[in-house]
C-alpha cells in the first residue's frame, strides 16, 4: 500500500474487518464486480461449450470426455490466480518491471523458432514445455500494452507534456514492431491483433492524430502493395476470400466457414439444446473447441445464448472503457484502452469469422476458446483493469 494510505489509516478510528470491507473506499468495494462477474460468466460458459464440443472427440481427448473440461477449469483457476496476483501487485508497482516482462515475452516468442517450438495447424506459435503448450504471443499482447503505456505516459504523467511527443510515439511503435515483425511471418491473426492494439493505444494516448491515420494508411498501403506485387499465391487469396465465398476453398477454409454457418444457422432462436447440436456432436466444424467455439453456442444455445455471449462481451468492454475514462493518469488509461482494443478486435474477428463476415484467422475468442495461455493473458488483463479501477479517484 502506498504511503498516502498509511497516513489515513493512522488518523482513522480502528474499524472491524467487516466494516473495513464495507467501507466505500475498501478494496472489496473498489473492485469492479460487474466486470469481474461478466468475465467469469464468459469463462464458465466457455468451459461448458468446450465440454460439449470435445466430449465425443476421442481422437483428441484420449477417451476421457472430461479431458478438456478439466484442463480448461485448471486454466481458468490459474487465470484467476494471475488476476488476483496482478491486482495485489497493482499496475503501478508493476511499472518498473515492465521492461523485464517485455524482454521475457519477446524472448519467448523467439524461442518458438527453436526446437522448443511446436507447429500447430501450420502456425509456429506454440512452445512445448513438459507436455504443456504455451503460446508466448498471448503474453506479448500484455507486454506490448504495458510497454507502450510506460513509454507513452512517461513524460505526460511526469507533467512535462500534455500529450506524448514524437519521440515517445516512435519508441512505443518500436516496442510494438519487435513482436509484430516476429509473428507477421506466420501468425497473421496475432499480427492483426497487435496492430489493432497499437492503433487503439495511439488513439487513446492523445498522441497527434497523424500517427493513427498514418498507421491506418500504412496498413492499407501494405495490403495494396502485397496485392499489386503479387506476393500472395492464389491459394492464399482464395483462403482469405473463402469466408465470403466458401467455394473458393471448399475443402479448407471454405468448408470450415460453411460448416460454422450451418451450425449457427440451424440454432435458430432457442438453439438445439446444450449437447444436442448435430453439427457439434457430429464434429462437422473443425477447431470447434478453440477458434470456432462460438459455433457451439450458436447451434446449441441459439440466438438467445449466442446473443447473450455478445452482450456479456459488451458488458466487459463497456466496463473496461469506463475504467479507461475514469483513470487519473495516462499510464492507466493507455493500459485500459489497449486492453479494450485487444479484446474488442479479437472478439469481433473471432465471432465475425464464425458468422462468415470476417476472414478466417487463427484467433481465439477471449475467455471462451480453449487454451491456457490465452486464458492467462485475458485474466492478467482483467487483473490490470481491476488494478486501474482500484487506484482511480473516487467519484461522487
Amino acid at each position, binding site marked *: 500500500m502506498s504511503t498516502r494510505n498509511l497516513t489515513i489509516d493512522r488518523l482513522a478510528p480502528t474499524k472491524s474487518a467487516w466494516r473495513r470491507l464495507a467501507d466505500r473506499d475498501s478494496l472489496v468495494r473498489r473492485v469492479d464486480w460487474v466486470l469481474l462477474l461478466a468475465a467469469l460468466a464468459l469463462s464458465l460458459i466457455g468451459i461448458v461449450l468446450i465440454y460439449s464440443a470435445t466430449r465425443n472427440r476421442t481422437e483428441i481427448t484420449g477417451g476421457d470426455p472430461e479431458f478438456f473440461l478439466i484442463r480448461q477449469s485448471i486454466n481458468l483457476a490459474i487465470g484467476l490466480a494471475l488476476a488476483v496476483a496482478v491486482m495485489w501487485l497493482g499496475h503501478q508497482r508493476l511499472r518498473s518491471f515492465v521492461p523485464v516482462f517485455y524482454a521475457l515475452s519477446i524472448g519467448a516468442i523467439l524461442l518458438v523458432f527453436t526446437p522448443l517450438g511446436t507447429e500447430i495447424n501450420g502456425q509456429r506459435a506454440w512452445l512445448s514445455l513438459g507436455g504443456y503448450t504455451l503460446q508466448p504471443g498471448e503474453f506479448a499482447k500484455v507486454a506490448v500494452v504495458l510497454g507502450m503505456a510506460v513509454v507513452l505516459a512517461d513524460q505526460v504523467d511526469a507533467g512535462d507534456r500534455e500529450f506524448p511527443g514524437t519521440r515517445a510515439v516512435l519508441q512505443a511503435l518500436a516496442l510494438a514492431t519487435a513482436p509484430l515483425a516476429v509473428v507477421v511471418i506466420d501468425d497473421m491473426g496475432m499480427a492483426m491483433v497487435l496492430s489493432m492494439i497499437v492503433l487503439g493505444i495511439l488513439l487513446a494516448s492523445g498522441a497527434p492524430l497523424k500517427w493513427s491515420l498514418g498507421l491506418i494508411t500504412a496498413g492499407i498501403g501494405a495490403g495494396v502493395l502485397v496485392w499489386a506485387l503479387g506476393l500472395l499465391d492464389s491459394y492464399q487469396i482464395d483462403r482469405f476470400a473463402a469466408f465470403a465465398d466458401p467455394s473458393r476453398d471448399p475443402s479448407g477454409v471454405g468448408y470450415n466457414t460453411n*460448416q460454422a454457418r450451418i451450425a449457427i444457422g440451424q440454432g435458430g432462436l432457442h438453439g438445439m439444446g446444450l449437447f444436442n447440436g*448435430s453439427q457439434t456432436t457430429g464434429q*462437422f466444424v473443425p477447431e470447434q473447441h478453440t477458434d470456432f467455439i462460438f459455433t457451439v453456442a*450458436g447451434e446449441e444455445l441459439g440466438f438467445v445464448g449466442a446473443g447473450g455471449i*455478445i452482450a456479456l462481451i459488451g458488458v466487459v468492454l463497456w466496463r473496461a472503457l469506463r475504467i479507461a475514462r475514469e483513470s*487519473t493518469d495516462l499510464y492507466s488509461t493507455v493500459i485500459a484502452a489497449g486492453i*479494450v482494443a485487444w479484446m*474488442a478486435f479479437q472478439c469481433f474477428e473471432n465471432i465475425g469469422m464464425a458468422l462468415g463476415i470476417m476472414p478466417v484467422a487463427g484467433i481465439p475468442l477471449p475467455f471462451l476458446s480453449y487454451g491456457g495461455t490465452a486464458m492467462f493473458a485475458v485474466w492478467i488483463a482483467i487483473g490490470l483493469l481491476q488494478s486501474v479501477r482500484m487506484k482511480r479517484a473516487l*467519484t461522487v
Partner: protein
Amino acid sequence: MTNIPETGRTSRITIRLVVIQILVFSLLLTLGGRLWYLQIRQGDEFAAQAAGNHVQQVIQPAVRGAILDARGVPIADNETRLVVSADRTELSKLPDDGEQVLADVAELLGLPADEVVNRVRLCDAETPQPCWNGSPYQPIPITDEATTRQALQIRERTEDFPGISAEPTAVRRYPSPEGANTAQVLGYLSPVTDDEVADSEDTDNPLLRSDQIGRAGLERSYDEYLRGQAGVTRYEVDKFGRVLGQSESEAARAGDSLVTTIDTRVQAVVERELVQAMEVARGQHDDISGRNYEAEAGSAVVLENDTGRVVAMASAPDYDPNVWVGGISTDDYSRLTDENSEYPLLNRAIMGQGPPGSTFKVVTSTAAVNAGFDWNGSYDCSSSYDIGGQTFRNFESSSYGPITLGRAIEVSCNTVFYGIAHREWQADGGNDPVDDPDDWLFRTAHDFGLGEATGIDLPDEAAGRIPDRQWKEEYWEANRDEWCEIADSDRDDYAARIARENCTEGMTMRAGDMLNFSIGQGDVLVTPVQLASVYAALGNGGTLYQPQVGRAVIGPDGTVRDEFEPQETGRLPADEQTMQNLRDATESVITTGSAAWKFGGWPQGEIPLRGKTGTAEASGDQQTTSWLATYTDDYTVVMTISQAGTGSGASGDAVRHIWEAIYGVQGGSVDDDAALLPEPHRDLPRIDENGTIVPQRDDDDN
C-alpha cells in the same frame, strides 16, 4: 458516464475514448445483427443443410407386388436373380473410364462388349436405347442372368472388376401362366428419371433413385399400389461417416398385390385364336386388292356383361414382357419400336381405333327408332342408294327388297340405313341445317358411350371419334388453311378438287358424311373396348359399365385393401322393346344372317349367342378391317383384325373357338367340365391364414 473526473484529464483523450467506445459497440451490434440474420432470418435453410450433413440413408428396396389373374394365378411376380451392375462413379475414377473393366465383364458374361457399354451409358436426347435413364449415382444393371459361377468370379476378384458388383436381387418376372402372355395389359417397368424423383419428393411415398416404375399397362396404372414403400434407415453420422445413432427407421413395406379380372386360361385361348386367325387370313386371297390379306395387327376383348370386367384382352403382334427386365437390349428395343415392328408395345384393344363398319348398325337402328322410325316398318334394301350424283352401294351390291330394321341388321343391309340417315339429314335441314338440329344419329352414338374414352383402368386409352357437327367444324378450323392453300394453287388433280371443296364447305355436314356414318364408315372411330362395352350393354339389358382390369388390391398381409366395384357409366338410349328387337336381330345374325356360316351347329338353345359382323373400309389402298362383336347373356367377345377382309370371314372361327372354350362347347353340345368359365368369377381368390393368395388351379377346380 458523463462525469469527467476532477483530475487533469484532458478532453482530447475523453473524446477519443468515446470514439473508441462508439466503434466497439458498432462492431458488437454488427455481430448481433449478423447473428440474427443467420439464425432467425435464414435459420430454416441452415437446418435443412445440417440435416443433409449428418444423416445418411440406407435403403432397403420394397418387393414389388404381384399381379394376379382372377383366380389368384400370378401373371407378374418376382424372382431372385443374380444381377451384375456397374457403378459409374467408380468406373469414372479409372484411367480409361472403366472401358477395360466393362470389356472384361462382357467377356466373363459372354455378352458383346458394345452391348455392355451401351447399357451403362447415360440417356440423353441423342443417345438411342438402350441407355440408362436412371440416376448416374446408382448401380446400373448389366445383366440379371448371371450364373452363380460368374457372380462368384466378380465378387472374388474385386480388384479385377472395380465398380462392378454382383448381388442377388428380386427382379420382375412375367411367367405367362397357361401361355397367356398378356404383355400389353401388364405393361412394363423401367428406372425412374431424375425428374420423376424430384417431382415425387413431397409426396407420401417419394421415389428413390434405384426405383423402377411402371411405364405402361397395369404396372403403370396401379404403380402406387404395386410399388410398396422402400425401407429407409436414417443414421446420424459424424463428418467421418461414423454412425452416431439410428435416428429413424422405416421397414420396407412390400407392395400390394393386384388381383385382376383377367382369367389367364381364357386369355391364353384369346391370344392363341387371335394369332391363328391372323395367320389364316394371311393365307387368303383378297379379290378387291388382288393380294393376300396383310392381317398385320389385331386385337380381341372379352368382357363380363354385368360388370364390365375384362376377362381377356389381347393385342397382336405381342412381345415377351420379360425383355424389359434388367434393362432392355438394343436389338429388343428396336424390334419393339422401329418402323417395321408393327409396334407390339401398343395395346390395340384400347389404343387402336378405326371405323367400326356394320357393327355400328345397332347404334344407327336405335337412333332410327328414337327418331320415330318403326322397327317393323318396311324399308327398301336396294342394291344402291343415290344422292346428288353419288352412288352408295350395298356390300357386293346385293339387294333384299323391302325389309324390317331387324332384318337389315341381320343381313347387314347398308341401303336401309342410308335411307334413314338421308331422311334424318334432310329433316335437320340438309346442307342448310336448322338452328337446333335433332341429330338423332350423333346423339344416340354419344349416348352409347362412343366418342369418349371408356375410362378403363389402363393408361393411354384412345377416345374414338363421333364425327358430329361440332367435330366437323373444329376439323375444318384446324385444316382450313392447308386446304385453301392447295385450293388456290393451279393443280387440278383429285386431291386438289377435294381440297377446294373442303376449303369452302368443309364445315358443312353433307349427306354423304351422314350416309357413311350410318354404317360405321368414314370419319367415325371406335376402339375395340368401346365396341365391346356397347355389346356388353346389349347383353346385360342396357347398362354401360366402365371396363376394368383391376379387381382388388391385397396387402402383403393378405388384407383386402381396396376392391374395385363395377362402375356404371350410363344406359343405352333404347327402350325395352328396342333392346329386345336388337337382341333378336343380333341373334339372327348368328343363326341365319351374315355370321351364320361360321356358327353352324352352335347350341343356341343352351347358350344363346348374338352378334354383328363388320367390314370397315380403310383409307388408301389398305384392305378392309374385319370386326366381329358377339355376346351371350354373360360375356361379350369382340375381335378385330386390320386388313383381313370381312368380320365373319376373318374372325368367325377364332371367336367361335373362344366361345367354345369359355362354355365347354364340343361339337354341338355343352360339356361343363371342359368349360373354362361357364359363369363369371364372383369371389376374390382365397387368401390363406398367412396372407398368401392361393392360386386356384384347374386340378382343384371343384
